[in-house]
């Protein structure tokens, strides 16, 4: 892992900006709702701009860890504060920025306990940003937990259907995950004998035996996997999504689940490659079960949010399958899918949120013909649905394509099963779209309002991300590639094989010829 020091501490600036905004929101007087919203909006807008800048400024030729900053923190325990982003983290920061910004705008009309909502919301996002840029195991864990806990209050106070049940289940499941991650981290640190929590130091100097890697990787896989919605630990996810308020659902499905996958990638795969190789078949099988299960259970749902919730399980299964392939295409696809699914699902929840605000129901059977009264909201919903089923020229398509190209080489049977189920699911999603947006409309929906111009901004941003990265996938692909190739090279040298063909794929050659 090459480290390239930053000329200016961009990453810390980003975090400090979030923390400062949080402080500002906390000290604002009780009834200054508008001020709170503006502070949040400015904070989210500025961090989005910064994330976009970092994504653009990331040097594709150079690769490795860039914008690296290092600070002493607790020398007694070997804990330092290291920030840095590579080709995996840069897209994730961008995703967080987009979802944060759109989430804040989506909740603009909130009236109930506004200050607390935005304080918790910013705190959660701070944790997410921190997690994506942290390169020290201690901080990775700290930010991981910081991003989980506000969730409980966010769901319990502002949620809807079965919120207490959903919130408690979600929190206990996710904390159960962190109950495995912390022992895993401490285990690796103590068997390394290096007395450091620094990820680059452990990756370069740490020597772990095969057994140690297997144990640690398993702990990380299950621990982070719970958050990534890996079957059979996904059961917190649909009720949690359904119970949460719109912006929290967006953030949760859009970004938080990615933290889980990112954790597996950053901690598990970087530090324990042998463990990764050992558990990859299990990962592939569980991921495939997740894809199939999520898609099939989604068929039976009548609540729109449940439909999206289960489709998230299915889509995160695709990420898991990509990881399990251990090929460049697979990993590229998986990370791309993390981004694409994040944007897509945020748009989905945001559109459903608007439907719910207007009709006060999410039952598919009760809706119908909504495109006639709210064409704009309806079209965003349709766009999200199309992206979700992987229609070409939208971001998810490229992600899924890459994953399945990888999966077909390594696990052909699993890939065929998954693809087959996804086709069925696509048919179903199209039927959902037809039932809600088209067809006969109940008379009492006639008075419904379409989204206002202000409220259309967040959706437009999300839709733009889906379309831009769908039309120009290389923007994303080139960045991810810089991190994937060293990772797979390391894996191959470990296995003692050159395996050049797993690196130069047809697709990557073809893609590099695009303008």
């Amino acid at each position, binding site marked *: 892992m090459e480290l390239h020091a930053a000329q200016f501490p961009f990453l810390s600036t980003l975090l400090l900006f979030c923390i400062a905004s949080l402080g500002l929101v906390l000290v604002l007087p009780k009834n200054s709702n508008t001020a709170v919203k503006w502070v949040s909006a400015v904070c989210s807008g500025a961090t989005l701009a910064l994330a976009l800048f970092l994504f653009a400024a990331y040097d594709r030729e150079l690769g490795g860890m860039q914008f690296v900053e290092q600070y002493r*923190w*607790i*020398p*007694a*325990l070997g804990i330092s504060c290291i920030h840095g982003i590579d080709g995996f983290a840069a897209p994730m920061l961008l995703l967080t920025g987009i979802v944060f910004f759109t989430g804040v705008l989506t909740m603009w009309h909130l009236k109930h306990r506004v200050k*607390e909502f935005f304080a918790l919301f910013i705190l959660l996002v701070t944790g997410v940003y921190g997690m994506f840029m942290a390169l020290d195991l*201690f901080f990775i*864990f*700290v930010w991981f*937990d*910081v991003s989980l*806990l506000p969730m*409980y*209050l966010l769901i*319990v*106070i502002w949620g809807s259907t079965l919120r*207490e049940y959903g919130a*408690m289940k979600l*929190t*206990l499941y996710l*904390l*159960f995950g*962190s*109950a*495995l991650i*912390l*022992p895993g981290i*401490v*285990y690796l*640190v*103590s068997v390394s004998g290096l007395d450091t929590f620094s990820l680059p130091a452990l990756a370069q100097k740490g020597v772990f035996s095969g057994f140690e890697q297997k*144990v640690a990787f398993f702990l990380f896989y299950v621990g982070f996997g719970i958050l990534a919605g890996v079957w059979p630990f996904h059961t917190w996810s649909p009720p949690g999504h359904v119970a949460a308020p719109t912006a929290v659902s967006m953030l949760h499905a859009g970004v938080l689940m990615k933290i889980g996958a990112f954790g597996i990638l950053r901690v598990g795969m970087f530090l324990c490659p042998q463990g990764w190789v050992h558990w990859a078949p299990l990962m592939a099988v569980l991921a495939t079960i997740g894809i199939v299960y999520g898609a099939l259970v989604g068929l039976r749902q009548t609540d729109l949010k449940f439909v999206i919730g289960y489709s998230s399980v299915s889509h995160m299964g695709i990420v898991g399958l990509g990881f399990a392939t251990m090929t460049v295409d697979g990993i590229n696809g998986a990370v791309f899918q993390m981004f694409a699914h994040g944007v897509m699902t945020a748009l989905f929840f945001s559109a459903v949120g608007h439907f719910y605000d207007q009709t006060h129901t999410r039952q598919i059977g009760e809706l119908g013909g909504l495109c006639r009264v709210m064409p704009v909201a309806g079209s965003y919903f349709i766009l999200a649905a199309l992206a979700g089923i992987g229609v070409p020229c939208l971001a998810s398509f490229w992600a899924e394509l890459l994953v399945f190209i990888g999966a077909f080489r390594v696990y052909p049977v699993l890939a065929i099963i998954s693809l087959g189920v996804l086709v069925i699911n696509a048919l179903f999603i199209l039927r959902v779209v037809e039932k809600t947006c088209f067809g006969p409309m109940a008379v009492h929906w006639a008075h419904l309002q379409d989204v206002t111009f202000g409220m259309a901004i967040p959706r437009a941003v999300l839709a733009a991300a889906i379309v831009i990265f769908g039309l120009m996938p290389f923007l994303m692909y080139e960045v991810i590639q810089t991190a994937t190739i060293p990772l797979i090279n390391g894996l191959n040298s470990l296995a003692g094989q050159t395996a050049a063909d797993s690196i130069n794929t047809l697709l990557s050659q073809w893609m590099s010829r695009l303008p």
Partner: protein
Amino acid sequence: MTNWTLFIPELYSLGAAGVFFLFCLCRPDSRRDYGAAMILSALGLFLTVWSVGFQGSLFEGVYRVDLYSQVFKVLIYCGFFLAVCLCADLSGVDESRHSEFYFLLALCTLAMMLLVSCVHLLAIYIALELSSYSLYVLVYLRRGYQKGLESALKYFIMGAASSALMLFGFALVYGTGQSAYLVDLMRDLPGRINEPVVLIGFILALSGFFFKLAVFPFHFWAPDAYEGAPHQVSAYIATASKVAAIAVLIRIIALSGGQSDRLAWFLIVLSVASMTVGNLAAIAQKDLKRLLAFSSVAHAGYVMIGILSLTALGYASAVFYGMSLLVMKFTCFMVVVKASENGRNISTGDLAGLHYRAPVLALALLLALFGLAGIPPTMGFTAKLLIFTAAMKQGLLWLVIAAMFNVVISLYYYLQILKAAYFIEPEGQPPPIVVSTPLKLAAIAMILLMVAGGVYPGPVIDLAGDMTMGLFP
């Protein structure tokens, strides 16, 4: 030649207790008692902080003054001072008994200060008994509480039984080691710790401290005593008394020299049992103080993880854990005291609406509960990280995983409290809780401490490390 300067903090505490004894003889005046207690405890706190650098030995080697003991004295006095801070509304105790209340509290503090400095088995026993007897009476001082007698009696009987066991253990240790001085024992014991009589004696000798710390199976008094005692006394038991127990437990276990797998296994069993019993029982509790009592039992189990690794790092982590418990438990009890009317016991549901009735207290409670559950970035997380690191260095991966599962269990009931404080709307319109400015400052100080202990704990960790270095001469 006895250097009496070293003994100034203790003499001061004795003097403070004497003042309250004189008050007992005068006409009851709760304002005078409270004012005197605030001034005396604050002064004592300064005095103990001033005496942190003291080094030396007193009374022919029975009493040792070093960084370890002095820092613990500061912590114990902190516990005393904070408990007194909560006494502005001492409605749980009969007005005419306030002087006695402060007298016993001061006496107990003195006893614990002696306890952490004693390096002689008999002196340890006497100091321990002195502190316990004060607490037995304090628990019974609750006004008009039907179950008060039961709590106090249960506490007393359990305490007496464990003291008896401990004395028997001391006798066995003394019999084999031919000395009651810890210095001599430290030379002799590590080589012989695996002999049955030494091991049994050693384990029995620990029982008195297990009782203080409420480690399974010596924990049965805890829920009743916490429930039946005045809130301030419960707070004191949960903070100062626990810290003192941790201090002396580490001192005694350090005698074993860290070479005994059998001792470690024994401690592991107790630790896992404490965590599990404490956490599972806490789930079922309605009364907030009973819940906190069971959570103390669980925390005793976590502390034991640090201690049972039998290394300097482990002891240092246990010390840090003790400090974090002091802060977090005090915060919880502060909320209990303020949220209860007329010193009545409160259930979890009575916290409803706390977030607008007393926002600062609610925030402090949130951090304290997350800290108790070991969630970053709070002091409680750093403490857990330290004890887990210590245990992992001994190769106890599965113990750490078991502890983390317990953390998840505990999170369930901590979140229930949090839900009550932040989410449940109270019935009717209870008035806002009036939090006096000093107490608000105390709450803010606790919030800052808990966060600072989570994000920048370096100095405190170093301090804990320095303290425990002195245990290995």
